[in-house]
């Protein structure tokens, strides 16, 4: 049985913090097909278009009929655990720091034999369910858990390395003055976060959401203005070494186009908050989080940006907002690359229109902030990299994949 995680104690200031290391990161291009599937939480393997054989490990040629038309398809994630081992020795620093490490070989219902990271409660000869996760180095790996979820699954120290369960972790939510900020805070507390730090800019502006956050347990509010370098620096110096999950929900949406509603100041504000804001957070929270990813099972783990799906395609009704989101998305890719070296994973949640004051005239379907918050936390628990939230965001992704030129010409609010 999985051992329940002991409640994290305060840090012993006389003890050295373990330096982060990464699991082996070398992968073939084909194997990154798994990464693409893992990023969105799919369990998909290559399937031969001709003979339907499921292939694993990834390759370019069907091992049955030599056809080169192999497509990534969702396959049954069930299987039987054939054999297992608990490594007490490893050739790699990352695993040496974490032994014993449990592995198994699973015969998948879909066909292939799969070497997988094994959850503690998996039993030999019994059924398991597999998922594609992303490891600390940012690459897809397959993990296996008992077929029926167990109560303590989220406490599995080994599997926690491949996901970002907020349980017992300390979370910073950048903006507490939106409803989404409030709902994320509430859901983080409900998910067992050890401490929830919530940022608040412009103290002279009152916010009913912030007032509600004040009443949440294990939650504290700090002055944080992402447009202000000194403010970000100040907060990082205060709590930077405690932040284990950073949720950047900075939000500044104003309607308007480009040619038809030229407004550099609004665009500037959007860029200040979404783009330069992300830069400032990265500059001051990034380095210290990178140093703390190996600080025990509760060590720093993830950075999540809440973005709009319009980061992926410009919505002319929200022209500059979309552009600032795209800028943030681009920067998040760099952040992902830089934080990967420290074992911190960068996740992006892409939302459709949210039911809030600034998107009042956006037509339905619109997302309730609480739904978005719950999906964000589920995405962290599942270790996804791209968390696509809501029908509109899903449709945008599907349409971009199908025909980017079509959606470019027809998208509007």
């Amino acid at each position, binding site marked *: 049985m999985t051992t329940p995680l002991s409640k994290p104690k305060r840090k012993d200031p006389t003890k050295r913090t373990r330096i982060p290391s990464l699991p082996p990161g070398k992968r073939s291009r084909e194997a990154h097909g798994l990464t693409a599937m893992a990023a969105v939480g799919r369990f998909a393997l290559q399937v031969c278009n001709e003979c339907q054989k499921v292939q694993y490990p990834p390759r370019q040629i069907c091992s049955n009929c030599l056809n080169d038309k192999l497509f990534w398809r969702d396959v049954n994630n069930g299987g039987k655990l054939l054999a297992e081992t608990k490594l007490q020795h490893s050739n790699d620093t990352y695993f040496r720091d974490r032994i014993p490490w449990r592995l198994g070989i699973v015969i998948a219902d879909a066909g292939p034999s799969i070497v997988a990271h094994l959850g503690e409660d998996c039993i030999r000869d019994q059924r398991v369910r597999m998922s594609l996760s992303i490891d600390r180095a940012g690459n897809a790996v397959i993990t296996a858990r008992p077929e029926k979820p167990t109560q303590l699954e989220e406490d599995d120290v080994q599997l926690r390395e491949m996901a970002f369960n907020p349980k017992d972790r300390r979370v910073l939510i950048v903006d507490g003055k939106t409803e989404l900020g409030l709902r994320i805070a509430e859901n983080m507390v409900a998910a067992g976060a050890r401490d929830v730090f919530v940022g608040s800019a412009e*103290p*002279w502006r009152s916010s009913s959401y912030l007032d509600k956050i004040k009443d949440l347990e294990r939650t504290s509010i700090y002055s944080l203005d992402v*447009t202000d370098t000194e403010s970000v620096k100040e907060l990082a110096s205060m709590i930077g070494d405690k932040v284990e999950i950073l949720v950047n929900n900075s939000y500044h949406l104003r309607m308007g186009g480009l040619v038809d509603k030229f407004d550099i*100041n609004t665009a500037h504000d959007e860029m200040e908050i979404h783009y330069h804001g992300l830069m400032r957070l990265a500059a001051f929270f990034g380095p210290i989080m990178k140093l703390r990813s190996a600080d025990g099972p509760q060590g720093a783990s993830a950075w999540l940006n809440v973005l709009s799906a319009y980061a992926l395609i410009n919505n002319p009704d929200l022209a500059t907002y979309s552009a600032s989101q795209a800028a943030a998305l681009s920067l998040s890719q760099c952040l992902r690359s830089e934080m990967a070296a420290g074992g911190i994973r960068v996740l992006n949640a892409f939302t459709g229109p949210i039911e809030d004051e600034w998107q009042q005239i956006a037509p339905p379907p619109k997302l309730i902030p609480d739904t978005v918050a719950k999906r964000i936390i589920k995405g962290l628990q599942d270790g996804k990299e791209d968390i696509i939230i809501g029908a509109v965001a899903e449709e945008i992704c599907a349409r971009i994949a199908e025909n980017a030129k079509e959606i470019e010409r027809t998208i509007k609010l």
Partner: protein
Amino acid sequence: MHNENKKPTQLLELVTAITRGNIKVIDLTMTLDRKVPTIVLPPELGQSWPFRMEEISKYNEKGPATYWNNFSCGEHTGTHFDAPIHWISGKDLPNNSTDTIEPEKFIAHACVVDCCREAEKNPDYLLTIDDVCSWEKTYGKIPPRSWLLMRTDWSMKKTPEEYLNLDDEGAHTPGPHEELIPWLIDERDVIGFGCEDVGTDAGQASNFKTPMPCHHLMHGRGRFGLPALTNLDKLPAQGTVIITPPLKIRQGSGSPVRVLALIEE
């Protein structure tokens, strides 16, 4: 043009007096930093940028021998000068922007009306004609082309929240009564109105019959505004000269300004 024999004795006397301490220089300016509050407007309107500063270099790889910064802010940030062009009522006046205002208007006499007690009791306190008349009884009539500076000690508020003093009906900060403004212009020919809070109008002035009278009427008549002053408690009621030149921004509606006051000891 120059008369080489004529020596500028009055100016030399002024400098000597300053050097000797007979004339004291008081700084009426807030320190500009990132915490300086700017006026709060409904969020859907255009917003003034807060004061922000980013280091260019500090004797480092970006400039081994130099320390300097870029800063950004709205024209109406911190202690600042409001030019007539700032308001729609003053948009068509001649010489109404920071680059065209005649420079002699940047040096003028100032009267200081102490409203501390009233403002402490009532944050929405409005300075009336009667208040000024009773002040004149004590300190004498306001000379023409003077500033009227309203001292409230508001600049001593500890936090931006207290300073802006907002609730769900807007700001609650003292300012001039709407009837005072035309009286000051027509009856006393003031050069402008200065105060210690974030704008020259009272916090609730948008609800007046003439909304924002200090802006609307003063600027409409080519007069100036000088909000967010400090150290007014160090000035006498009459007899101060203040120096208020804004940055010479083409078509500027105002600018942060270093306001210096000269007083005789």
